[in-house]
């Protein structure tokens, strides 16, 4: 067991590890690169940048996505920005400081060596994206503009209005399309990965369903990269796009890839609250709003007056009160929990009682409406479109929502999973964010993995591994195809009475209630009883109309929900076993005055789960985390 979780952290000082690795890695000579084929699943920031770079190096790349176009991957929705240790502001930033902030922000549950490399290549990311024509915000002198973000005391966030994710994705997508034109990348859209094929112990291909024709296809390669994003949609309501699923990663998990820290989910504090039964997803309001918005609830329980009628001395600006030094800019996990506490006390606003105010009145008075509109105009318009209320005239209402998942497939320093030849990049892996993700760091990781890490580590794998030729007529492919077809026909033949969404919503409620912002032993045990019951009902009573051999949206959703049910159970088990609080994982039994209480003596490790078979308990393995550079300390924002 222990040798399976070899993190392969290179020796030497933290500053030299990556440089040394790059020299030590085996190379593939240019003429041999075109003899190697690589599959990339997912075409968001991590997948598109990986496909573009690998294609450009000369490998034969096949890229797959569920969308009609790679440019629609969910990376597109990120608003705020991307961090890089450029120190353009001369305010004391450095690779080391970005590394330090990220390790601390992740509540000391990330691997130091990975985080340092992330900080190290962050500057290259900005160079690369600017050279590709990403229109970042500029100062009048023509240099790049920066702003600050939660969890940092320096201005290191680069941004493109409120559409940083979209512009970065367009950059990576266009580089990938350049390789499509050059013939090095073959693009297969509207394909969903439904199994991983392993030959002689190595990842050698995937099985996909063509979502338009229903056809099941086999694709072989010398290595597979999964960059399929996160799994927040396990909660049903989340800020993730509708097609975000765990399926590709989960199928790989079932084939032997360990799943690490599944319970680590980030709850983002500033989302538009739920409005009713039919709501399909939640919309995020950028964290940057907390720079000028003040968060409050009425002091009195049950005060239902219009916010503008509640006088100043009857308002509780609780973040400023509890965290005087960070105030409204307290980190996401802290701000989210505080909102929950206030609503649990009965002081929440909105009809549901599940919202708090984010008030711009003071800033408008101080800076003028024009300045506020210049800073946040598009967000204010979006808020008004969704809620019908004008945030210039009355406070916004916000509530926390599931946003980003720090858990994912376990990978070593080379981003290789426990299955040789299966690499995992971006949000789909577990590696860089620990128990909590700071703002503007997800985009950074996606591009770092795809542009600057995988081209080296994958080359090393191909250069140092003997790979026999395989073809899709191989028995392993046939068996996997058969399994996929059987599962589909099983789903289609249930012909029950309940819709897929009704199951998904019920699962989401269980997950939010018992494995959401706060978790405790009793609740998690309850969830572990309820989820298997729900899963059983699903497999007996789900209704999928239509046919499997053409476009069938309900069938697609059913497959994803089936995987979410299994994942949800693992998340609860992981949360139950981790008897401490850290970052976004808040076990109510382990706290000091409402603050997370870590247990470094017993839990300073990554928990990686091994799948052992249907209806069998997964086995928990651990990878010890060593903090040699950033010393373990309690996070405090007071």
């Amino acid at each position, binding site marked *: 067991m222990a040798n399976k979780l070899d993190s392969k952290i290179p020796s030497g000082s933290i500053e030299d590890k990556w440089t040394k690795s790059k020299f030590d890695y085996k190379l593939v000579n240019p003429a041999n690169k075109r003899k190697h084929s690589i599959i990339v699943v997912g075409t968001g920031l991590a997948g598109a940048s990986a496909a573009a770079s690998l294609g450009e190096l000369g490998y034969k790349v096949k890229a797959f996505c569920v969308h009609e176009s790679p440019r629609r991957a969910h990376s597109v929705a990120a608003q705020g920005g991307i961090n890089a240790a450029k120190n353009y502001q001369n305010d004391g930033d450095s690779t080391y400081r970005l590394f330090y902030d990220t390790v601390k922000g992740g509540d000391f549950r990330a691997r130091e060596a990975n985080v340092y490399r992330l900080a190290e290549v962050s500057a290259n990311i900005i160079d690369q994206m600017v050279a590709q024509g990403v229109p970042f915000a500029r100062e009048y002198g023509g240099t790049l503009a920066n702003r600050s973000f939660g969890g940092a005391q320096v201005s290191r966030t680069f941004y493109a209005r409120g559409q940083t994710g979209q512009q970065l994705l367009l950059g990576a997508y266009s580089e990938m399309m350049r390789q499509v034109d050059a013939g090095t990348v073959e693009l297969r*859209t509207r394909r969903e990965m439904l199994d991983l094929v392993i030959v002689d112990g190595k990842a050698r291909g995937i099985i996909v369903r063509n979502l338009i024709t229903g056809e099941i296809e086999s694709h072989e390669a010398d290595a597979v990269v999964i960059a399929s994003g996160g799994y927040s949609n396990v909660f049903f309501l989340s800020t993730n796009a509708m097609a975000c699923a765990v399926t590709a990663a989960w199928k790989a998990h079932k084939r032997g890839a360990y799943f690490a820290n599944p319970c680590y989910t980030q709850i983002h504090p500033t989302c538009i609250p739920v409005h009713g039964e039919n*709501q399909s997803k939640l919309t995020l309001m950028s964290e940057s709003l907390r720079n000028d918005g003040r968060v409050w609830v009425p002091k009195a329980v049950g005060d239902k007056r219009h916010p503008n009628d509640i006088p100043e001395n009857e308002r509780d600006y609780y973040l400023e009160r509890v965290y005087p030094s960070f105030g409204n800019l307290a980190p996401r996990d802290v701000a989210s929990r505080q909102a929950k506490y206030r609503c649990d006390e009965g002081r929440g606003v909105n009809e549901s009682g599940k919202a708090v105010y984010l008030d711009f009145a003071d800033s408008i008075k101080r800076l003028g409406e024009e300045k506020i509109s210049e800073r946040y105009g598009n967000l204010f318009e979006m808020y008004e479109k969704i809620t019908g209320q004008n945030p210039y005239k009355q406070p916004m209402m916000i509530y926390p929502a599931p946003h980003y998942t720090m858990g994912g497939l376990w990978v070593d320093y080379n981003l290789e999973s426990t299955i040789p030849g299966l690499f995992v990049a971006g949000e789909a892996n577990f590696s860089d964010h620990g128990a909590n993700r700071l703002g503007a760091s997800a985009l950074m990781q996606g591009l770092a993995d795809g542009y600057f890490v995988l081209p080296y580590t994958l080359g090393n794998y191909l250069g140092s591994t003997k790979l026999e030729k395989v073809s899709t007529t191989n028995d392993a492919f046939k068996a996997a195809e058969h399994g996929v077809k059987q599962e589909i026909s099983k789903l289609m033949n249930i012909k029950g009475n309940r819709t897929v969404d009704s199951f998904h919503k019920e699962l989401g409620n269980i997950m939010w209630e018992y494995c959401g912002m706060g978790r405790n032993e009793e609740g998690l045990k309850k969830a572990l009883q309820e989820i298997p019951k729900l899963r059983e009902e699903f497999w007996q009573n789900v209704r999928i109309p239509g046919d499997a051999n053409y476009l069938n949206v309900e069938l697609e959703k059913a497959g994803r929900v089936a995987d979410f049910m299994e994942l949800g159970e693992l998340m609860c088990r992981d949360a139950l076993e981790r008897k401490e609080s850290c970052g976004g994982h808040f076990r109510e039994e382990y706290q000091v005055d409402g603050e997370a209480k870590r247990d470094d003596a017993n839990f300073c490790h990554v928990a990686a789960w091994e799948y052992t078979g249907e209806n069998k308990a997964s086995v928990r393995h651990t990878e010890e985390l060593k903090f040699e550079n950033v010393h373990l300390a309690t996070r405090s924002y007071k």
Partner: protein
Amino acid sequence: MAGKTLNLTLRVWRQKGPKDQGGFVDLQAKNVSEDASFLEMLDAVNEELVGKGDEPIAFDHDCREGICGACGFVIDGEAHGPMKSTTVCQLHMRNFTDGATLTIEPFRAQAFPVIKDLMVNRSAMDRIISAGGYISQNAGNAVDANAILVPKADADEAMSSATCIQCGACVAACKNASAALFTSAKISHMALLPQGQVERKERAIRMVAAMDAEGFGACTTTGACEAACPKDIQLTNISRMNREFLVANATKREKHSDGGAG
């Protein structure tokens, strides 16, 4: 934000597949919350259809935040519906009146074949991008970002063009089904930046050629595209594209072999 509900009649385009004839079907949407988005209203109608064992209405959608560009169809003759600068996923039911009948149909264009119901195939737009909608920059060794100075005004204007979400509403709104607004926004974005200069002419020629080859119609500058665009992409992009294309053609050099002796 609560309270009122609407009852609507939907005349929805149903089409099983690309080769199927297709036609309008009347469906009822009852007790729709005015706080629901248009797509959430369709979700509710679909839940009812699935409950009866019927197939749900197929439509493309994903982020539901107005940024991914996946969603879009025509409501009462208008791409993305009646609200200005709004994608259909951000269109909310409070903008409709109780008892109304709404006609919902897919984006129609020869280059956008219907896949099913309201879902169309827009991959022609990806092919326009792969024909030159990029700046060639190999990964790994770009110069320091601040070594490329970009005047703020240029960066802002490039950004305004780059906000196009590739949804295809411009094509659907155009009587010629022209993709000029989309293609020109891409050409403009890169033509305005110093990084885009090297390939500027080649890019204009190749992207315009790809656009024509995909079967999009010609632009006659009616401005319907700009009016329908959920991201306010401006017509001036089209003028810029035309200028880029003309200059590129007028100054085009014949390609010659540049192989050298070893």
